[in-house]
């Protein structure tokens, strides 16, 4: 039996420690991992827990991120609770196996500490790796601070391991800005944390020696489509309500409320920015200041990135006249992903806001309050004009000549 760790009600943890503690409290059976900045401390912390008797599963330090996820897949198919962590280049190396994990319906939890993708090589936070994973069939939950990184891990395990879902889940946090920034984190006791997720319930487990199973089959044009369609069906129709259920149960337990779409001052907002990660909290501060000046501004934070909460977002945005979609990843050749998703979300609705796109924060560049004030000024002008007054896509915080497209 693993030792219990006595935690204070509020611990000062960075996002990495928050994730590590969640993995410890749910008593993961196998962690197969490979270190990479800035997610390395998640694995180091876990190694320390193991070295001091706080976890009693298997901790396997493999030789690459691809092997980490490969080992996780083998372990998960064998029938137990499995998790790992990665970032950036390591995430990119894992991509092949991410599709295997979701296609094989294995409830693995992956903490992704978001970081830019080279070249040029960069260790700081942007959302390029998160975007790279968005078609991989995983549930993707988005943390804005260390508290979220802690809480969303429990949510992720509870949803992913549900036998009606059986899909892997990522918990995203911003590299360094969340992962290395210590904040007060409200904790659960080990017992509370474990019980929220519960004992792992195996299904189609290879280690049930009386019931052999074949995992990872070949399907061609005769069955491949049906497999992918059923996976999508589960993600679209089952996962979202289960995530909501888990959010509700979590609120009952802890008093902390999470929503499929997070909103700030959106009830009567005329204009809004939509973003993810730490930027949501910066935008909230700016909106508070603008509200003091009588500006009806709001913030929409993407909490559940995949499956995309299309209906909930459309509802939140139905009365908004101008929207800025803020993408922390270079789309390379088109508009930003959030711009595209929001446009698609609203296209068949009565809402016809002016929608513009801002690329910001690549490679860990700060998004300042002044930047956000500038964006809201654009949105105000767009709202008043009833059409874009700027290019559809602008680069924010970039040195040198202004860069914009479309």
């Amino acid at each position: 039996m693993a030792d219990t760790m006595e935690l204070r009600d509020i611990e000062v943890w960075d996002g990495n420690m928050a994730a590590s503690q969640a993995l410890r409290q749910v008593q993961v059976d196998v962690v197969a991992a490979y270190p990479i900045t800035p997610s390395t401390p998640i694995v180091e912390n876990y190694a320390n827990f193991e070295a001091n008797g706080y976890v009693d599963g298997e901790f396997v330090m493999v030789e690459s991120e691809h092997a980490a996820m490969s080992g996780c897949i083998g372990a998960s198919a064998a029938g137990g609770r499995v998790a790992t962590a990665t970032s950036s280049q390591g995430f990119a190396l894992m991509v092949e196996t991410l599709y295997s994990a979701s296609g094989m319906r294995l409830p693995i939890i992956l903490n992704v500490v978001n970081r830019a993708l080279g070249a040029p090589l960069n260790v700081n936070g942007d959302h390029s790796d998160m975007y790279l994973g968005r078609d991989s069939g995983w549930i993707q939950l988005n943390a804005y601070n260390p508290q979220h990184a802690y809480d969303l891990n429990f949510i992720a395990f509870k949803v992913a391991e549900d036998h009606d879902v059986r899909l892997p889940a990522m918990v995203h946090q911003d590299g360094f800005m969340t992962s290395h920034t210590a904040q007060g984190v409200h904790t659960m006791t080990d017992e509370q944390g474990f019980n929220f997720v519960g004992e792992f319930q195996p299904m189609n487990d290879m280690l049930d020696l009386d019931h052999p199973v074949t995992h990872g089959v070949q399907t061609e044009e005769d069955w491949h489509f049906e497999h992918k369609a059923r996976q999508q069906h589960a993600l679209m129709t089952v996962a979202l309500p289960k995530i909501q259920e888990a959010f509700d149960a979590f609120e009952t337990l802890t008093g902390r409320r999470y929503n499929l779409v997070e909103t700030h001052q959106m009830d009567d907002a005329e204009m809004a920015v939509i973003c993810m990660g730490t930027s949501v909290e910066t935008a909230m501060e700016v909106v508070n200041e603008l509200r003091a000046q009588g500006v009806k501004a709001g913030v929409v934070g993407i909490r559940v990135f995949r499956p995309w909460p299309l209906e909930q977002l459309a509802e939140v945005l139905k009365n908004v006249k101008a929207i800025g979609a803020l993408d922390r990843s270079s789309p390379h050749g088109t508009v930003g992903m959030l711009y595209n998703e929001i446009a698609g979300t609203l296209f068949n609705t009565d809402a016809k806001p002016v929608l513009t796109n801002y690329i910001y924060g690549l490679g860990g560049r700060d998004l300042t309050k002044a930047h956000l004030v500038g964006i809201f000024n654009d949105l105000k002008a767009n709202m008043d004009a009833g059409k874009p007054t700027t290019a559809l896509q602008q680069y924010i915080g970039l040195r040198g000549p202004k860069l914009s497209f479309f």
Partner: protein
Amino acid sequence: MMSEIKKIKNLKEFSTSADRFEGANLLCPGCAHSIIVREVLNATNDDLILAASTGCLEVCTAVYPYTSWDASWIHIGFENGSTAVAGAEAMYKALKKKGRLKQPDRVPKFVAFGGDGATYDIGFQWISGCFERGHNMMYVCLDNEVYANTGGQRSSSTPIGSSATTSPAGSTSYGEKKNKKDMMAIMAAHGAPYVAQVSPSKWKDMVAKIQKGFAAEGPVFINAISACTTEWKFAPEDTIAITDLATDSLVFPLYEIINGTELNITYRPKNIIPVRDYLGAQGRFKHLFTKQYDYLIDEWQARVDAKWEQLQRREEARV
């Protein structure tokens, strides 16, 4: 609980013992893969947890909604069959520690199969990682010296002079230019408790080695010659005969290395046949039999002689 070593009296008993690999599969008639897999699986009565890398064995045995496997089996990709089974082995250890195994009295064996492409080339790092970490598993390379599943491209196991689709023989080329990688030496250098070359045609030798491998604690590497009727270009009924030519010409010597150091030759042909006879029996070497390339056959014979000499010296020196 220590598992008992299965006693096998004769080939008839061996070939008719309970199959966990069904004859219903899509492998080519005359494919040695199925013979090797049966010989591995039939060597034990213990429960098995199996993995396969992408390749002939995988695409021919688990085509939804069918499976040829009556033991738990997993496939992820081309490079990671080793790590798939290592992950399952890690879960076994975790659940054992935590008292959550469904059949706690049974100790399954963990076996990964991969072709030479998956072993010598794309999966090399994953296998090395598994062996360095010391998982309790057996890795069996079905070595047919070519990417057979995709139509005969060269791998780093393809022998010099062989015509492969990406190293074809032509008016200015004799085919593959590089010597086959010595995987046995590399895997033994990991300090693995047991590393062996086997041939499905020498079934007693093979069963003894598989059973030794299963009895060992830690990662075991088995390199099995898998004569490929399609890519080596011989008649499907000649699989065993070609395999015998490989072992009896010493092109594919049968030996084992224990704990990375103790080398034992396990099969000494009564009549060593010329390498020329082995090459001449296969279409992939047909172009070598011209005056122009005669020297290549002589060089090959010299390499085989030197390797055999080296193996014998190592066996004598016990190093």
